[in-house]
């Protein structure tokens, strides 16, 4: 995965080191995400998955190394340039992170009103359309605190999609959802990728999701402080020799690898 040919990759990460203050979380990360991937960042709790996400979406500055969107550098440029790059990115935070003082419609209209030249009526139509896409048609006037956690997450997704981003980030999309809602969300993610041609990057440790929709992945390890496996989740399960990866992918029963653990 150390290909430095950045022409067809949407995101390229080179020799990235993530740190909180002096404490290094992950180092020497190298990977690229190609157009149309559902790219999974996986690993145990506390290995730095979410920290990596914060760096990719420009909320935290890396200690060392580079992140490229296409051929453009994310860090080491002016904040206006970074903002410009991130305009084609949508993020769904773990809890949805909707602005609690605004209705769902106002939340989704926020980026539309600021960054597009749409009229009031067009914005309203777009908001209704996006809400309908995530199955929340008719909930325009609700406040985030008035709907369930799963609905908040879907509304967060509608907001992340407001500007038709080329890249969608998901932080633990299925965390806190019941199995059926989680599966519906997985299907939604997949159909968004297929119909909008978006590239999906998700941070998760939900095995069901990883195997169901992940096309590529990296596995971060907290002991090694770097990525110890790359490839499609199915492939990793079949071919990986690393006990840490196998333990993770088989819920601690590596001997069952390849015996349909994924349907457990």
């Amino acid at each position, binding site marked *: 995965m150390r290909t430095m040919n950045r022409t067809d990759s949407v995101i390229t990460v080179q020799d990235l080191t993530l740190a909180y203050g002096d404490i290094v979380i992950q180092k020497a990360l190298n990977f690229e995400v190609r157009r149309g991937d559902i790219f999974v960042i996986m690993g145990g709790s506390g290995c730095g998955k979410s920290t990596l996400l914060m760096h990719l979406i420009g*909320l935290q500055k890396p200690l060392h190394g580079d992140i490229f969107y296409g051929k453009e550098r994310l860090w080491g440029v002016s904040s206006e340039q970074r903002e410009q790059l991130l305009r084609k990115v949508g993020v769904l935070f773990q*809890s949805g*992170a909707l602005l609690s*003082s605004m209705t769902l419609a106002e939340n989704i209209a*926020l*980026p539309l*009103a*600021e*960054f597009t030249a749409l009229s009031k009526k067009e914005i309203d139509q777009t908001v209704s359309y996006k809400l309908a896409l995530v199955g929340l048609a008719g909930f325009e006037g609700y406040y985030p605190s008035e709907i369930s956690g799963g609905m908040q997450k879907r509304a967060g997704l509608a907001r992340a999609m407001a500007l038709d981003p080329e890249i969608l980030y998901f932080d633990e999309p299925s965390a806190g959802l019941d199995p059926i809602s989680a599966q519906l969300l997985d299907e939604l993610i997949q159909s968004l990728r297929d119909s909008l041609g978006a590239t999906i990057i998700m941070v998760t440790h939900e095995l069901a999701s990883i195997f169901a929709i992940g096309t590529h992945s990296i596995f971060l390890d907290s002991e090694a402080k770097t990525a110890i496996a790359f490839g499609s989740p199915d492939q990793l399960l079949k071919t990986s020799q690393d006990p840490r990866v196998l333990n993770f992918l088989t819920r601690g029963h590596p001997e069952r690898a390849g015996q349909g653990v994924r349907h457990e």
Partner: protein
Amino acid sequence: MSNAAALNGEDFNPMTEGLRDGQRLSLDVTRLGVWDSYLMIALIDVMRRCHDRHIGVDTSGLPKGMAALLELSSRVPERTDAIKGVAHRAWLERLGESARSVWLDGFFLTQFIGESATSMVALITGRARFRPIDLWLQIQACGPSALPIVTLISLLVGLILAFVGAVQLALFGAELYMADLVSLGMTREMGALMTAIIMAGRSGAAFAAQMGTMNVNLEISALRVMGFTASDFLVLPRMLALILVMPFLGLYADLMGIIGGGIVAISFFDIPLTQFIQRTSESVHLTDFFIGLFKCSLFGVLIALAGCFRGIQCGRSASAVGEAATSAVVTSIVFIVVADSVVTLICHRLGI
């Protein structure tokens, strides 16, 4: 183990004392009735003692549940490096740390003031990203809603000023001059100061709590990803609202204070209303009003800065939000009093 009503950990100590190296301790629980976690704690303690003294423990006689719990509690060894000791630190180290945190606080505050100033410039050049509706909502929350409390406090402050002044002035038979005292005191000083302190408690704390909670819910991160900065989207409407609303509230407080003074003058010191009004209008000049109004706007900026700063700095827990609100009020009041002293000194020097 007997079926005594209650056992506690100490009862087990004598059991192990008589044992020597190489002996084995076997546990018989046939007469054990109901047991809970305390038995397990005592048992684990006994096993640790035995282990230290190389005495074998035969756990085969234990009921199934108990054996499983013992196994579970010893499966993951204690992380000795994970225990947070209460490190004893020398007073010099603690002093240094506090000094460092004050320094850092000042550093971040300066940075925050810089960002807010940049947002102000962006506002003037029309590039600031915020929703005008938020400004109206903040004006509503800071202004009209604060009128009742401002009325009460300023009326009482005017009353108190009048009483304190009149008692002293009566010594010279100059009670009439209490009108000067109240009206000048309110317009130049107390109107602005009391309004500011009320607003620090009302709006400053609210700003810190709102923004702190937004921080906890990652709402501020979400805003940043969408291309909005906290200083434009959140600080600007709040600061503008206070700058706009504070002078009006201050003016209203002045009026209320003077009315309070008038009530005392008329009802307790038999000063005719017309005379009170005449003295007031002679003693207070437009400059005095302007000084008061200027102070109000200045305090508005300071309250918004302190409230928003503490809110943005807020940690990611419920108690951190509470601390942010408290600290916002304390910081605002310190700022207000210091700024008031500086302005008063400058006015004195300039002779206005």
